[in-house]
């Protein structure tokens, strides 16, 4: 069997790993970009492990449309996971006038506090109300899922937005900006006054 070219292997590695350090060889990078383009993909630069990294995005109009007639189905994350991402976005994106990615690191406690401050009655509607311990277990599980899916940086000890967020378009970011004030945020600490 014919061995695949280095470019094909690099493209396969990038697809399988989701994010990789950017090659320093301009020729290899050019060939990789061309190969990605032939498949309707494009290379998007992100920061990765303290240096430049690459992820695969879709060229405009190339992303497969999902729907019952298209043969493409997407598994929408459950509400708890999406709500957890909303809290992460709020914690890591302090200035809505700037792009959310890469944003700033936040502590896991900050995100969990933002979620814990939500109205328990409404959390019940989301199925996220298994007592204090159960709810926190759900939210930590949601953080793990977000890391595995690339919405959070899987390598970071703290909460950092991941490469999947870097692939959102300006229109996507606009949707978040319009509702920025409603993203869950940790309550300010109650300080005593002398």
């Amino acid at each position, binding site marked *: 069997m014919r061995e695949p070219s280095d470019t094909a292997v690099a493209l396969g590695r990038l697809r399988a*790993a989701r994010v990789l350090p950017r090659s320093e060889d301009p020729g290899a990078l050019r060939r990789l970009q061309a190969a990605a383009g032939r498949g309707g993909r494009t290379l998007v630069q992100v920061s990765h492990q303290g240096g430049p990294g690459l992820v695969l995005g879709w060229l405009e109009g190339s992303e497969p449309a999902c729907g019952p007639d298209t043969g493409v189905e997407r598994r*929408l994350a459950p509400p708890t996971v999406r709500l957890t*991402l909303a809290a992460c976005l709020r914690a890591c994106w302090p200035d809505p006038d700037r792009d959310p990615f890469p944003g700033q690191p936040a502590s896991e406690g900050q995100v969990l506090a933002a979620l814990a401050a939500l109205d328990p009655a409404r959390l019940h509607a989301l199925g996220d109300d298994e007592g204090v311990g159960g709810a926190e277990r759900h939210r930590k599980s949601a953080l793990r899922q977000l890391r595995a*899916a*690339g919405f959070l940086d899987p390598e970071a000890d703290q909460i950092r937005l991941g490469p999947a967020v870097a692939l959102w378009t300006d229109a996507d970011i606009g949707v978040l900006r319009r509702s920025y004030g409603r993203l869950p945020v940790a309550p300010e600490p109650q300080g005593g006054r002398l």
Partner: protein
Amino acid sequence: MSQERLFEEDPEAQERDALMRRVAAFVAPVAEDAGAVASDAVSLDVADAIYQAFGDLDADGGLTRADLATACADVCDAATFANRFELFCRLGMLLPVRDKAHQVRHVFNPTSAAALLVFERLAESGGVQEIMTLLDRTRAGLRSGVVCREQVAGNLARARRAFAVYADHLSRMVRVCPLEELIAERRHHRDTEVLLEDARDVVRLVAERFPDLAAAGQRLVGEALRYSAVVGLFIERLLDAAAAQRDFSMLDEEQYRTAALTASRDDLAVVFARTVFDPPSLWIDPESVIDAVDTFSPRPASPRRPPRPPDLPPGPDPIDQARERADAARRRRMRTAEDLLQGGDEADLTSRVRVAGWPAAAQLIAALLATAADQKLPYMVELRNALLVDPDAPVTHLTPAILHRSVPDTRPAPETLHERQGTRDA
């Protein structure tokens, strides 16, 4: 359609060409020259159409040339039919039956019918089926005890030679033939395992019945094994080519299904060992993030202006017209009341009502009650409790009624929409 596809040969035509080559090889032992077999499969189609006509039409007593020409109309033109008809008659496929001096009917020669069935088997299984038939026949004869030693020895030798011929033929194909020919050949060699098992079964029976033929039987199994091994090589080359070209059509659907049901997980995983998969992912876009936030905290309702009233149609304002109608009615009621009072403050209406007749009496009372109910008019109607009955009068039952002039009601009347609008406009 790509340019290469445009120049590809029709697969059906390729298959028919292959069949004609096989038929030529089939009749080669008795052919007089290389042109003994038609190169175009249309001859076979005409023969088949004629054969079907004899089977399907009411051919009792035979069919005429015209009947056959009609049956072949969809297969060939008249000239081709004439050509093939004459040939079929000369070679004895169609046998004449003369029942009238001027009309010749024909019947179909059963030997030619057998030949067509053989050609059909050649098309389907390339002749391998003949080995299976020979083995089946031998096995049935051994079990029933009707075959003699010489017949069994002859059948064993024929089956061995057939295996040898097929093994050599396939071996040559694996070495020199292009992939397209291998693909066309593959369906003729699907029953290898069954053939091998049949051969072993026959040899086992032969060893029991004619022990001295055991050696011939072993030679048969040896050739069958060689044939099986060559089929293995043949399949291996096909699979290599299929894997290299990622052509999943090389195997039948049933073969994939069998593999899915019976192969081990590791074997199945090999198929995708060089395939790149995206890591597992969740689908989250900003819209769905905001949807989740909405579920927790619904969007505040935005203040909405009431819808703008539609522009009034041209013409007089209907509200003004309604007000004018109401004013005119009030003036009419006031004039009626003043006529009855005749400048006084009180008037007994009983006799007026009595002489008014029916229904004018009821209309008068109704008008007076409406006048009394109008708060802007200074009138009141008093209805007494007495009941006056006069069977001969125009109104037989009558309650005495008195109209009073009253002090006008100075309370403000309920504000109408029109008046409110007018005030704001002012």
